[in-house]
């Protein structure tokens, strides 16, 4: 009988876990829809900004933009890595796959003899890199669940300053791109200096691009601020959508596992219950037979 009671308790505890995972799945599912819409809506803008900037940078001569530190290139001695992770767990391998990529990149850079500094976004990144001996330049945690332009601006300004003040000579962003509900991908984006497109051989003669009022004005006032801000903003949006999708997948799995576990346990429980009943019947019948003599 004690066995029956134990099984019953076990079923109950699995059931309550299942309730939690199911609720978390529903919450993530509701949020991921909106996050997905935001990512998809923001993508054309970021892509356009990045494309225009690269086109322009590839065309102009460095002498024209000498005053702009953000465009200057120098020998890379130290690299800043911006790591985009989540504040909360229970989202499957979402964070660990980012960290794996970061650790690989760090050892690669160190093997090349370069220093590394980390800019960490998300509590999970902070606790993961606590025990790893790499310089942490800055930490951002508990950002709002829905990334806004404000946080992007904050991070972008800091990163831009790091670069212009020559504290680092290159910055890369490692985060997760949202591809679909079921798929996301860890990506490393070259942030600063601006990645040049592959030198394409132009067959036809292209007219020279004009700049109004001047290259420096266009760059300084509009293009560069938009670039540094929107790449981060997009990164944050992608990461939050990917996090929610990962959490939804993880919680769906957990709920299904709980369901299977309960089904198995119920079977065992019923078998045990029937065995107990049969046992009892046998005892009664045996007793009656004995009385008959």
């Amino acid at each position, binding site marked *: 009988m004690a066995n029956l009671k134990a099984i019953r308790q076990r079923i109950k505890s699995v059931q309550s876990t299942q309730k939690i995972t199911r609720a978390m799945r529903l919450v993530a599912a509701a949020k991921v829809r909106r996050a997905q819409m935001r990512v998809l809506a923001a993508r054309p803008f970021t892509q*356009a900004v990045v494309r*225009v900037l690269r086109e322009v940078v590839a065309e102009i001569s460095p002498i024209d933009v000498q005053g702009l530190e953000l465009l200057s290139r120098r020998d890379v001695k130290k690299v800043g890595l911006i790591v985009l992770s989540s504040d909360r767990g229970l989202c499957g391998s979402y964070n660990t796959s980012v960290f794996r990529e970061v650790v690989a990149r760090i050892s690669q850079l160190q093997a090349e003899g370069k220093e590394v500094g980390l800019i960490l976004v998300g509590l999970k990144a902070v606790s993961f890199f606590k025990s790893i001996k790499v310089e942490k330049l800055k930490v951002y945690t508990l950002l709002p669940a829905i990334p806004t332009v404000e946080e992007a601006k904050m991070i972008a300004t800091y990163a831009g300053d790091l670069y212009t003040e020559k504290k680092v000579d290159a910055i890369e962003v490692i985060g997760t791109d949202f591809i679909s509900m079921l798929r996301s991908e860890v990506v490393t984006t070259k942030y600063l200096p601006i990645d040049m497109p592959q030198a394409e051989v132009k067959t036809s003669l292209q007219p020279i691009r004009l*700049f*109004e009022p001047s290259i420096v004005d266009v760059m300084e006032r509009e293009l560069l601020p938009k670039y540094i801000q929107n790449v981060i903003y997009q990164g944050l949006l992608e990461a939050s959508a990917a996090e929610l999708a990962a959490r939804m997948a993880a919680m769906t799995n957990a709920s299904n596992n709980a369901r299977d576990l309960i089904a198995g346990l119920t079977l065992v429980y019923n078998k045990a219950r029937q065995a107990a009943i049969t046992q009892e019947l046998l005892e009664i019948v045996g007793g009656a037979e004995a009385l008959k003599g």
Partner: protein
Amino acid sequence: MANTINLKIITPERVVFDDQVEQVTAVANDGELTILPGHEPIVTTLAVDVLRFKVKGEEETAAIIGGIMNVNNTEVEILSDMAELGIEIDEARANQAKSRVEAEKSQKTDKLDAYVSEMALSRAMVRLKAAEMAKLRRRGRA
């Protein structure tokens, strides 16, 4: 040479407009310029003002809150933090914003605050202007 050019207005929130147009007139920081198909490539910064463009002979408007315009052989691309088509603009809201900001402005003495309300005011004004122009056109057609 083709007689239309693709106009794209993109903001961080959405793609506001993406279609073939016959001409685009924008207000850059140092004056107005009109882009016709086959214009030479140009990159310019835009002022907070009304953008006008012609679709099948009809003039349309959009309120553009700053940004850049990138023109190449086949395309005019406008990247702005905020943009709305004239016909989408909620006039009542813009009017409200205008009167609110005007009231705020008279009280503010701080330079930064004054600048912020000045910007808000110009946004509201441009919205109203674009909406007004869209309305006039509709009336003219009827």
